[in-house]
């Protein structure tokens, strides 16, 4: 196993969960290394939250097992597991102050009052909330509640911290700030983080490794670069980043190859200079121009029949320059190796073989 010679912090073996006739999680095998920042990425209903709840112990699996630090905890209650959860809606106790919320895990473990105070104060300091210890959760902003939930989970020093879309309720600026803080906090405390999100950018920027979920199965596991640069299925190519696929007739005409290929929008240039020996090129017409400040997105209809999205940084161009390109013929070029073959799975999605290092 590539998780290293050490025992993985979390191991899932053949995990399944059915709710009546609905199979929410279908046969998930996964190993998460100690100290890893691991994201489970997928659209809503893809089973990622259910997997998280089975690790925490809130849902009993229909089949399979959950191992924490090598110990089988499948049949144990949540309070018997050395993991803590940061809930999507924070689930702060409304009748307790911030300090009482943070102290709760220590109080039920019968830690002495003085030590409780010290550790709660330290945890609140680590999330920069020291001044608000005597407030009620109702008197806090969303970002502050988020930090209380973090401090409350971290104060009991779990082996693994589970985070269920913890940034989902925050606005964009705060979310970006919390992403940086979470990552820094994780490095500082050295705890394994298992992070559930539907936001691909969040998963890519924060994680050591990402598992992409589709219909209760893992479509691909890998580092953010692997998942982004070499998507294992068309679904991953589309969900992680912009879906830019060349297949069938268009692939034959442009690339001279059979199969389906993914080309990331930022790898394509349309500056018009002739393609070099390492590049593939294709002619087309600009159908749409979307100016987005730092970048511009061009939707280009290829003469060969496919549609590709191209993003360019607005290094020297202005909105007026790029708008003038609408409707014009252009020549696209990209380095040949950036057209990545994407195996199209027979339905249902089988487990991709090239990410086998993440499995047993």
């Amino acid at each position: 196993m590539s998780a290293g010679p050490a025992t993985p912090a979390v191991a899932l073996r053949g995990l399944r969960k059915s709710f009546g006739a609905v199979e929410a999680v279908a046969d998930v095998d996964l190993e998460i290394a100690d100290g890893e920042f691991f994201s489970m990425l997928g659209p809503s209903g893809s089973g990622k939250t259910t997997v998280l709840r089975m690790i925490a112990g809130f849902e009993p699996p229909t089949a399979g097992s959950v191992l924490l630090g090598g110990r089988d905890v499948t049949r144990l209650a949540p309070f018997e597991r050395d993991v803590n959860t940061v809930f999507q809606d924070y689930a702060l106790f409304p009748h307790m102050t911030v300090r009482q919320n943070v102290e709760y895990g220590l109080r039920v473990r019968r830690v002495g009052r003085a030590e409780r105070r010290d550790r709660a104060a330290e945890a609140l300091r680590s999330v920069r909330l020291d001044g608000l210890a005597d407030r009620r959760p109702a008197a806090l902003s969303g970002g502050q509640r988020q930090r209380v939930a973090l401090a409350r989970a971290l104060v009991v020093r779990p082996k693994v911290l589970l985070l269920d879309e913890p940034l989902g309720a925050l606005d964009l600026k705060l979310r970006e700030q919390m992403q940086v803080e979470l990552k820094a906090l994780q490095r500082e405390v050295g705890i394994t983080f298992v992070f559930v999100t539907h936001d691909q950018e969040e998963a890519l920027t924060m994680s050591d490794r990402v598992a992409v979920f589709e219909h209760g199965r893992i479509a691909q596991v890998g580092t953010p670069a692997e998942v982004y640069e070499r998507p294992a299925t068309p679904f991953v190519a589309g969900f992680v980043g912009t879906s830019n696929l060349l297949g069938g007739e268009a692939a034959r005409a442009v690339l001279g190859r059979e199969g389906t290929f993914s080309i990331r929008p930022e790898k394509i240039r349309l500056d018009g200079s002739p393609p070099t020996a390492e590049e593939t090129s294709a002619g087309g017409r600009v159908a749409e121009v979307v100016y987005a400040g730092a970048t511009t997105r061009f939707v280009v209809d290829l003469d060969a029949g496919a549609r590709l999205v191209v993003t360019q940084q607005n290094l020297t161009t202005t909105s007026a320059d790029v708008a003038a390109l609408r409707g014009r013929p252009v020549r696209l070029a990209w380095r040949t190796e950036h057209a990545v073959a994407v195996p199209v799975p027979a339905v249902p999605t089988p487990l991709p073989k090239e990410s086998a290092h993440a499995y047993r």
Partner: protein
Amino acid sequence: MTLSRSARWLLRGAMALGLAFIYLPLSIVLVNSFNADRTFAWPPPRWTTEWWARAWENAGAREALWTSVQAGLGATAIALLLGSLVAFAVQRYRFFGRETVSLLVVLPIALPGIVTGIALDTAFRSVLAPFGIDKGLFSVIVGHATFCVVVVYNNVLARLRRSGGNLQEASADLGADGWQTFRYVTFPVLRSALLAGGLLAFGLSFDEIIVTTFTAGPGVQTLPIWIFSNLFRPNQAPVINVVAAVLIVASVVPIYLAQRLSDTAGGGRL
């Protein structure tokens, strides 16, 4: 929405008229309890506290008050227990017939009291009497509990829905066992909802008359029943005014408190 000047005054007038129609007769009862004239001449020629003293000394009224308090407390206790159990079941678990159970629990408050009364009377006389359970104070408590359960159920269910199901999960996640979760999280969050539901239940039981008529055993007389049976005795009329005044105050206070408690969301103050 902005209303024209005349519309605003018209609506204010209608509101004042409506409230006056409800509360003026009640205040007349209060005033008349101090009216020295035996036939309640209006305006009162003289004032007196004699009726209050006579009501206090009236053994029948005092006994009826004590019976009412017992019945109210008993019905409230049953309602608190059953109402919160059902609310937990409906909120936390998905089971066959969940919606039906919810409807059946709420229904008794809408059922005509006379039907409930007759049904309970029959049940007690023909089914339970052979087992030695006769009509008495206990049957009154059970009768009241049938509709008191609703108010506790509604209050607790509303609180459970608002506080979100995962407070219990969060507590367990942080290492608390079932008893600790109940003691530190579930009960404190519900406390004010239970109190509000309990006060409402007591208020409902305290002035109930129809179901009581059918379920009370011989010699069991609650305060409303005592009033009703003494209403047409001319020399008891002043005393009845006093008892009615007491009933008004005794009903207003719990309802007022219950409303305050329901409005304070977090339940932090109590």
